[in-house]
């Protein structure tokens, strides 16, 4: 018989109410958004009267979750960057050379003289003059290897050492490369996040994609070029010993050295040792400041290990120049006047105040460990987004009204039931989207419109079935019951197959397409729920009240 237990009725009703309750803030989008921004600002300590007033615009006890608008609706910039993880191998190997040299030096009686040879950037080649001493050299250099922790390779070392004739070759091990890639990407992700946060924009998305890619989406920013400027500047700071200074840009720097131009003296070139004494990674703080002549400068402070290295180096090299190198340009090359033990110093150069402030921010946020290559970039103007929202709204309303009218004309009272369910359905989609923090994109709006069209399908299946059952002259109650029972397998099969494609779209797609998959998938779930439970509940309640002898569907 047509019966629904009381607890089921209450559950259905509560589910609908909960969905609509969660969806409600979206109807007051701008107010709620202002409220949320104000709440966030106050949490961060900006308790201004304006923020307080904006917070008060939306009562605290109401839900305040909103559907995020995708970049294509809000406008903003989208970047897909690939982290050039190999960059790190070269600097790792550069850093290894002094260590290898120092370790081999005491062995000179057995291995003869040692000399660095040109090599691919991720290897170190060392020639020894007495090849018979190679076994000893291998032993010593292998002693430098550090064990690394990996999931698979227990006891793996970070470097591999092999000999080819009189050449000793040091490379990074595969396990170390993997671990290094992982660290590089994580670090880049973190640094990009910090840089974007320093600028302070709303809801940036900074996600890792695949092994070595980073997706960056920042709503409200003017252009992708602007975004690239914020994150793209590497600010790689190093302190290198200076070998010589000259004006020939084609001078041969010699192995283990490199030639870099001066930042503010045109035509001046420095030959510096490639292996830095200390790098910007060991900075703990950097602040804009002024030097004793009142010119803009940047104060910095090293961490303990950086301070020790810097202290030791300055103690041993009093009187010789060293270079402060920023992104492969020498900012300044002062001569070491005395031992600098405290680990802090000052960078002077011909900065403007703005430049010194920016440099301090970049240094503080840390340098990107490796270069970024931008594979994809999109800028969507806010006007286009607004146009799309407006067009989408009108289209959705028209589609909605057309379907409502059509359903009423076709099924009369039962059509009204289906229409109420359809309205609840849209509410549920928005409620769920707000709850899971889903993002609404332009194809997402299309997904909703498609759901409006398809949501009635389940109801249509049932109603058509009831019509058929009525023909075979059973009582109305029995016809309704059979209608639901027999239509169920078709409804489930049809929706499960569509749901499968939505899941695949979600898994394989990105950005706007994923937004479409979300609304389509949620739409299927809610439309099956409303068709099987909500319309049915309405029909049953109506039937209990009226007890019609005869129904027309």
């Amino acid at each position, binding site marked *: 018989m047509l019966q*629904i237990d009381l607890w*089921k009725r209450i559950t259905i009703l509560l589910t609908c109410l909960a969905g609509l309750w969660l969806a409600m803030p979206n109807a007051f989008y701008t107010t709620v958004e202002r409220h949320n921004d104000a709440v966030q600002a106050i949490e961060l300590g900006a308790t201004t009267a304006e923020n307080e007033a904006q917070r008060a615009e939306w009562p605290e006890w109401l839900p305040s979750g909103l559907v995020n608008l995708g970049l294509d609706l809000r406008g903003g910039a989208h970047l897909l960057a*690939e982290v050039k993880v190999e960059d790190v191998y070269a600097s790792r190997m550069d850093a290894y050379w002094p260590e290898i040299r120092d370790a081999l030096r005491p062995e000179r009686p057995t291995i003869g003289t040692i000399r660095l040879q040109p090599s691919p950037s991720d290897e170190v080649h060392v020639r020894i003059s007495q090849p018979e001493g190679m076994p000893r050299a291998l032993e010593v250099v292998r002693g430098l290897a550090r064990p690394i922790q990996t999931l698979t390779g227990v006891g793996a070392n970070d470097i591999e050492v092999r000999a080819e004739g009189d050449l000793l070759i040091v490379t990074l091990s595969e396990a170390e490369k993997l671990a290094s890639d992982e660290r590089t990407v994580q670090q880049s992700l973190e640094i990009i996040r910090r840089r974007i946060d320093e600028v302070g924009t709303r809801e940036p998305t900074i996600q890792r994609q695949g092994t070595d890619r980073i997706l960056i989406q920042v709503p409200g920013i003017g*252009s*992708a*070029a602007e975004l690239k400027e914020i994150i793209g500047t590497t600010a790689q700071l190093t302190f290198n010993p200076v070998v010589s200074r000259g004006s020939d840009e084609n001078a041969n720097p010699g192995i283990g050295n490199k030639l870099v131009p001066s930042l503010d003296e045109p035509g001046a070139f420095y030959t510096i040792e490639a292996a830095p004494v200390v790098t910007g990674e060991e900075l703990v703080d950097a602040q804009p400041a002024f030097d004793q002549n009142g010119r803009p400068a940047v104060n910095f402070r090293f961490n303990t290990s950086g301070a020790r290295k810097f202290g030791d180096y300055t103690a041993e090299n009093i009187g010789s120049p060293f270079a402060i190198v920023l992104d492969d340009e020498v900012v300044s090359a002062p001569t070491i006047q005395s031992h600098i033990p405290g680990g802090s110093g000052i960078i002077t150069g011909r900065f403007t105040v703005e430049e010194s402030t920016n440099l301090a921010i970049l240094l503080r946020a840390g340098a990107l460990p490796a270069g970024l*290559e*931008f594979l*994809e*970039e*999109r*800028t*969507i*103007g806010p*006007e*286009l987004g607004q*146009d799309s929202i407006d*067009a*989408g709204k009108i*289209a*959705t309303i028209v*589609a*909605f009204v*057309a*379907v409502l009218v*059509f359903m009423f*004309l*076709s099924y009369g009272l039962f059509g009204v039931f289906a229409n109420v369910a359809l309205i609840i359905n849209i509410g549920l989609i928005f409620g769920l989207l707000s709850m899971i923090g889903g993002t609404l994109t*332009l*194809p997402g*709006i*299309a997904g909703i*419109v*498609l759901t*409006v*069209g*398809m949501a009635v*399908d389940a109801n*249509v*299946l049932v109603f*058509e079935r009831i*019509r058929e059952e009525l023909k075979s002259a059973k009582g109305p109650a029995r016809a309704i019951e059979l209608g639901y029972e*027999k239509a*169920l*397998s*078709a409804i*489930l099969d*049809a929706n499960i*197959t*569509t749901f*499968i*494609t*939505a899941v*695949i*779209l979600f898994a*394989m797609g990105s950005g706007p*397409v994923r937004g*479409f998959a979300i609304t*389509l998938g949620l739409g299927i779930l809610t439309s099956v729920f409303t068709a099987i*439970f909500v319309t049915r509940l309405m029909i049953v309640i109506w039937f209990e009240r009226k007890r019609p002898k005869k129904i027309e569907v």
Partner: protein
Amino acid sequence: MRLRLVKQNTNFDFFKRWKLWLGISGLMMVVAFASFMIQGLNFGIDFRGGTTIRTESAQPVDIGVYRDAIAVLELGDVSITEVFDPTFEDDQNVAMIRIQAQDGQEAVTVDIISAVEAALQSVRPDIQFISVESVGPKVSGELIQTAVIAVVLAIGAVLIYIWLRFEWQFAAGAVLALVHDVILTIGVFSELQIRFDLAIIAALLTIVGYSLNDTVVVFDRVRENLRKYKKKPLAEVLNISINETLSRTFMTSVTTLLALIALFVLGGDVIRGFVFAMIWGVIVGTYSSIFVASAALLYLGVKRDWSKPDANAGNQYANIDA
């Protein structure tokens, strides 16, 4: 008086010329495929890399002037099209400029984009760049790959699901219909040279879902009727099933089309291609579930030895109530 799209108790004979229908469908698939092979798709930058710039100006778009301004930069293949849309204001003149991926450049360069913008600003001082999108060839290659995998995976998953829920002949029929729909859709895009981008893949997958939805509803009724009319020939059972579900098929197609047409007309030009694909898909999907899926089923034949007595008794959903 109720609105009825299909009068009650229809009795069309859908299978009198089923070989003809299969033939026509086959021929259309060949035409679509040939068009795809000869003309190729008008791939958007998602799939072949490059840059698109959407411009807006109060002055009318003059493609020749735009082209001359950009030509001096020697960027290879540049296509400029004016965009028309009923939702635009009178002084809203929109153009899309597409620049091919530059040789030997994996990443996108800001220089090129700003050079193009400067060149256009010199001929149209009030021009605005509403959106600028660049995709490098590396990513676009991968996007094609993922898109193809997505479509194949979707069809495969569906094949398995229907195989489990029905018989293999049903699965084969449904998948044949899907392939038919996908090929015809790609054919239309190639024939009309509508821009084919990532969103169209989403549309293709939705078409897969929708066409399937339709096919499954018909098949569900066929399965039920096969148990009900054990002695009737397969063609007749198929015919009865399609006639019985015809009213529903039309209702759903019409409601979906109503919604989609509203979006097509009013939804703006950005998603028009996407919506067009779906409208086409709904029409083709409805056709194919009757004339391709069911005809294929007729051709393959089905196992008639249904030992289960009642249509729903053996059905795992038979006892669900609410």
